[in-house]
Every structure is written in structure tokens, then in C-alpha cells.
């Protein structure tokens, strides 16, 4: 068990390295002049060359990557001339806010999604099933940013019951704190609800078809007990999607945070794109991807406890 866990953790390392390679390549090799943002329009070729040497841009690619990677690992994400701050400080402040929003969205989305999916799976073929299936396809198709705008139109513009944006801390009272969360959470977790419900339903329906369910019934277990067996067998694919759902939420945060002026990583990325500050885009993407990889790792480890095969492989 322990060796298996260590092995799984060890497997995450190359993935993380891969992530940095992809990001670094994207922003170093793809067309686009990295110096353009740092130099004044009328910089001379000599100035250019000097800056390039200073930044190590005249080094071969692998060396530049390794330098960059070690800087990142030291927590040195560079300086943002546009925000006039250390990128690491910007990210640290934003990360907490994004984690808060994503955490609430994930909890909300997974709870609703798993509940709806379980209902639909248990009462497959019924009106509830059709309702959930229909709801899921709507949730899957609806753009989160459109939902956000609709919510704003209804609850901020028309009825003026919810704040149009920003974030409140708990110091300002629970209602203000939650009030600022409601719309971002709902609009952000629509897709998660839909996908989780679909996967949960499919997994439960599939498990009910398994032959051991007949054995459970044949030995006289109550339908409630049968459902418990089915649930324990059906949980694996649902767990797998939970990891992916968080990915959706982190990716979607760029849109949701922008619309609701939530001071998180997403808004940071959006503003950096608008300002063409690729350094921030680069660093934030790496941080989000690393968070995502670690979350998936945790989900995998959790999954192991449900699979006797992996439990026994000590």
C-alpha cells in the first residue's frame, strides 16, 4: 500500500515537469516577441541584444528552460513591469481567493450532481430520470458566462438583491460573504453538476447490470442493502470525474472571476492577457496546472481505498 502510494506520487513528478515544459515551450517558441513588452518602441538593436543577454535569451533552449524551472522552484516567478509587483506575490494573494471560490463551487456542484445522478440511476427510466437527463444536457450546453450574465440581469440589475461583483471576507458578516459567493458558485458549477450527474447515473446503471447484483438479490438482501453494494462499486468513475471537475472550475474561473470581479487567479490571467503580460500568464498557468495535478493525485489515492486490488498490492 505504502509503496503503491509512493509510486503514484512519484508518477506525478514527470507529469508536473511535463506541464512546465509545455507551458514554457508555448511561451518561448511560439511566435511572439518576448522582448516586445519590456522594451520601449524605439529601442535600438544594441539595447535589444543587451537585454536579451541579461535575460539569458541568448542561451540555448534547454539551458533557458532549466534556469526558468529552478527560478520557479525557488518561488521566483519574475517581476511584472505592468503590475509593478513580484509575480509570486500577486499569485499568492489570488490563489487563496480562487481556492475559496473553486472549493465552494466543487462542493456545491458535486453534491447536487451526485445526488441527482444517483436518483436518476436508481429510478432509471422514470420521470425523475428523464428530468435529470434533460437537466444534465442543458447544464452541459449552457455557457457559464451567459448564466453569469443572466443571473446578473435578474438578481443585480432587475431585483437588486445580490451584489454584482467583488468578494467579501467573513469579517463583513456571513450574509455578505455568502451573498458575494452565490452567483459565481451557481454559474461556475453548472457544467460540473451536469457532468457529475451524467457520470454518476451511467455508473450506477452500469453497476446495476452486473451479475453480482442478482446474487445480492437472490440471497434476500433488502433493496436498500443492494443499493449500498452498488454505490460502493459505482463510486470509482465518479471520483475520477471529481478530479476533472475541479479542472473545469479552475479553467472556468477565468471567465467567472472576470465577470464577477473576483480577485483570483482567473482575473489575474484575464488582466494579464489584456495587458500582454505573458510572464503572469505563464506563471499562473503553471500554478493552476500544478494545483490540478496535485488534486488529481489526491483523488487517485482516495480511489485506491475503494479498490481491493490496489489495497492488496502492497
Amino acid at each position, binding site marked *: 500500500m505504502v*509503496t*503503491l502510494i509512493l*509510486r503514484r506520487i512519484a508518477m506525478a513528478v514527470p507529469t508536473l515537469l511535463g506541464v512546465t515544459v509545455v507551458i514554457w515551450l508555448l511561451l518561448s517558441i511560439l511566435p511572439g516577441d518576448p522582448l516586445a513588452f519590456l522594451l520601449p518602441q524605439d529601442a535600438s538593436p544594441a539595447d535589444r541584444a543587451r537585454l536579451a543577454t541579461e535575460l539569458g535569451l541568448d542561451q540555448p533552449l534547454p539551458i533557458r528552460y532549466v534556469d526558468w524551472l529552478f527560478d520557479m522552484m525557488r518561488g521566483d516567478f519574475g517581476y511584472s513591469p505592468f503590475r509593478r509587483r513580484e509575480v509570486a506575490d500577486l499569485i499568492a494573494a489570488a490563489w487563496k481567493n480562487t481556492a475559496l471560490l473553486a472549493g465552494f463551487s466543487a462542493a456545491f456542484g458535486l453534491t447536487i450532481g451526485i445526488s441527482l445522478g444517483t436518483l436518476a440511476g436508481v429510478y432509471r427510466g422514470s420521470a425523475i430520470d428523464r428530468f435529470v437527463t434533460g437537466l444534465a444536457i442543458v447544464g452541459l450546453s449552457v455557457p457559464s458566462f451567459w448564466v453569469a450574465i443572466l443571473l446578473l440581469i435578474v438578481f443585480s440589475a432587475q431585483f437588486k438583491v445580490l451584489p454584482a461583483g467583488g468578494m467579501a471576507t467573513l469579517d463583513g458578516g456571513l450574509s455578505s460573504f455568502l451573498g458575494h459567493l452565490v452567483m459565481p458558485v451557481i454559474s461556475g458549477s453548472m457544467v460540473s453538476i451536469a457532468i457529475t450527474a451524467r457520470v454518476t447515473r451511467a455508473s450506477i446503471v452500469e453497476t446495476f447490470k452486473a451479475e453480482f447484483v442478482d446474487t445480492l438479490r437472490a440471497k434476500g438482501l433488502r433493496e436498500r442493502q443492494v443499493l449500498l453494494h452498488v454505490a460502493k462499486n459505482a463510486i470509482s468513475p465518479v471520483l475520477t470525474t471529481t478530479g476533472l471537475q475541479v479542472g473545469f472550475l479552475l479553467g472556468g474561473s477565468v471567465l467567472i472571476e472576470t465577470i464577477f470581479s473576483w480577485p483570483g487567479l482567473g482575473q489575474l490571467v484575464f488582466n494579464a492577457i489584456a495587458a500582454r503580460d505573458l510572464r503572469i500568464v505563464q506563471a499562473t498557468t503553471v500554478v493552476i496546472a500544478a494545483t490540478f495535478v496535485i488534486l488529481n493525485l489526491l483523488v487517485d489515492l482516495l480511489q485506491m481505498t475503494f479498490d481491493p486490488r490496489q489495497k492488496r*498490492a502492497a
Partner: protein
Amino acid sequence: MTTPPATVATGLDKTTVEKPSPLPLLEVINVSKRFPVRLGPLKRGAVSAVDTLSFSVEQGQTMGIVGESGCGKSTAARLVVGLLPIDEGDVIFEGVNVRSPHQPRHTGAREKEIHRNMQMVFQDPHSALNPRASVGEIIAFPMKVHGFSRQDQRERTGWLLEQVGLHGNHASYYPHQLSGGQRQRVNIARALALSPKLVVCDEAVSALDKSVQAQVLNLLKDLQQELGLTYMFISHDLNVVEYMSDTVCVMYLGQAVEICDADRLYANPLHPYTRALLASTPVLDVTGAPRPDVPPLEGELPSPLDPPSGCRFRTRCPSAMAICAEEAPAVTQPEPGHRVACHLYPAGPDAGLSMRRHAVDGRPERNSNA
């Protein structure tokens, strides 16, 4: 579905078939195959699927291979036809060494020529036919690969369908529209498309209903007579193997434990495993005739990852002795033509025998695996 029942065999008499040529068509010499497996994060092991297997099949004869699941009989089939590379040993076909780990890979044309002569009938009537192709396309595919003209493909497909007792119209149907027995007939027709000399039947009737099984067995026998085919007939059903085969090879955990003419093997099984197999086979018998008094096989099949030392069967053998754990039994011939690998039959003057009939070269006949 108005095709007449199989009529291919009419008027063919057993005695008219030419005598088998003296040299074997196929010789399998000390062939071994191990599959690497991952046992743990860092541990690796190897399943010994086939271990120093040797036998030979003569032209026009049927070699039956029988054994329980995991005995390596299907792996042996795939090694012979070249679907799996062999680790050790040689496969000699018509006197030519066609597969050997020491030989360089065959060129495409040579390999194609070998495939033309060795084909296989597969087990599962569902998975053996491409569900997206029509019956005609399935049967014609080997011919297409071998450059038959369109006209030839069409004519031969029609002839093959007729040979296996299907209607010409069946060419345009898709596998899911056929019954299990019909699919198995298509499976056979495809194997015959290139006029092979050797046909390997891997559990060819096991998935069929009992009432259909007999049809397909009859068809295989008829085709053998008419086309002079040589079969390697693999099955777990002892009765079917006995009926189909001239010679039978019994396998246990990747090794051949007994090889003999079918009649003699069933009348006088020598190896304790063969005896146990025969005693376990349900027999439709209400006459009350005494069943052979063999105790049922105790214990579990040992893991092929770590086969027992010495004789692999000793852990379940009712007559295991001390020597069985120490030494792998040599192949002996307690009666003419009846080869067995068991310490109950100590080596006589003819020590150093092989499970095959024709010694080919001076390579060691049977490696000790102790």
C-alpha cells in the same frame, strides 16, 4: 435460410484418402514462451505459458491438444501460426524452419507464403468475424491481401460458402445476422480461403450449442477428407478431441505430459493427470458400468508464475514421490508410440526421447527446468 445441410462429404470414403507421407508436415521442437508480467511496483516476473513443447503432425492427420484453461494450448496454437513470437525452440513446416528465435525475421513475401499454408479457425464466433464487414468481404480479405483477382475472389468465396454449407446469398449478410453455427462456418471458410495445408482449430466448437457442435465437427471432418487438410485441433473437451484426433497431446501448465495415438491414450492413459482428466469428464452413461476409480483431482492449479519444482503436476498428483519434487521427469516410452513424462515410468534403454516422433538435429531434446 434455405441452404441444404452440409453435403460436402457425400461419397467420400476413408480408404480412398492417400496414405500419410512419411515426413511430418509440422514439427514443433522444444518450443517455449514466457510472458513478462508486472508483479509489483518494481518486481517483474514471467509466466511460463509454454515450456519445451514438442510434437509433430503428419500430413492429413489430426493432432489433438487437450488440457484445462491455463495449460498453454491456445498459446501453443498462436506460436505455431506465428501470431506470437517464440522465445526458444523451432517450428519446422514441410521440412523448413519457419519460426525460430535465432533466425532473422522473415521478409514479408516469405511470411505471406507461410501464412498461406497455415491458417486458424478461432474460438469465439462473435469476436472472430469483423462486425463491420459482410460475410463476403470477410472471406475475401485473405485473398485480397494475396493479390487474387476480383473475379477469382468472387468465385472462390462462392465456392467456399458452398463448401461450409452456407448459401451463396450469405455473402451479403453481416455477422450479427447469422446464428452462432453459421458464424463458425464463415470462420472456417475464411481459414480455407488460401487453401492452407495446416489448419489450427482453437476451441473451434466450444462456444456452440451442443446440437450445433456436431454439425461443425462433421463439417471439419468432411473438409479434411475432401481437401486433405492437416489439423491441430485444440479443445478442453476430451470426448471431442478423442473423436477428432489421430494423435492426442495432453498439456498441463505449459508442458506436454503425454502424447499418444488417440485410441491407445483413452484406453490406457498413463500419466496421472490424463487419468484424472478422463475420470472427471462427465459421461452420459446410465448403464451403471463402473467408472474408472480415480480420486478427484485435489488442490488448486499452481501459479504459472512460480510452477512447482521437478514435475509440475506433483502438487496435485495422487502418486507423487520424493523424486518428483527434485527432478523434472524425462520423456519415456513405456509402450511403443506412447510417450509420457512421468517418474512412474522410469527411463529404459530409449532414454532421451522427445515428445515428437522425428528427431531432427542434435539439439538437446528436452531441457530440465529444475
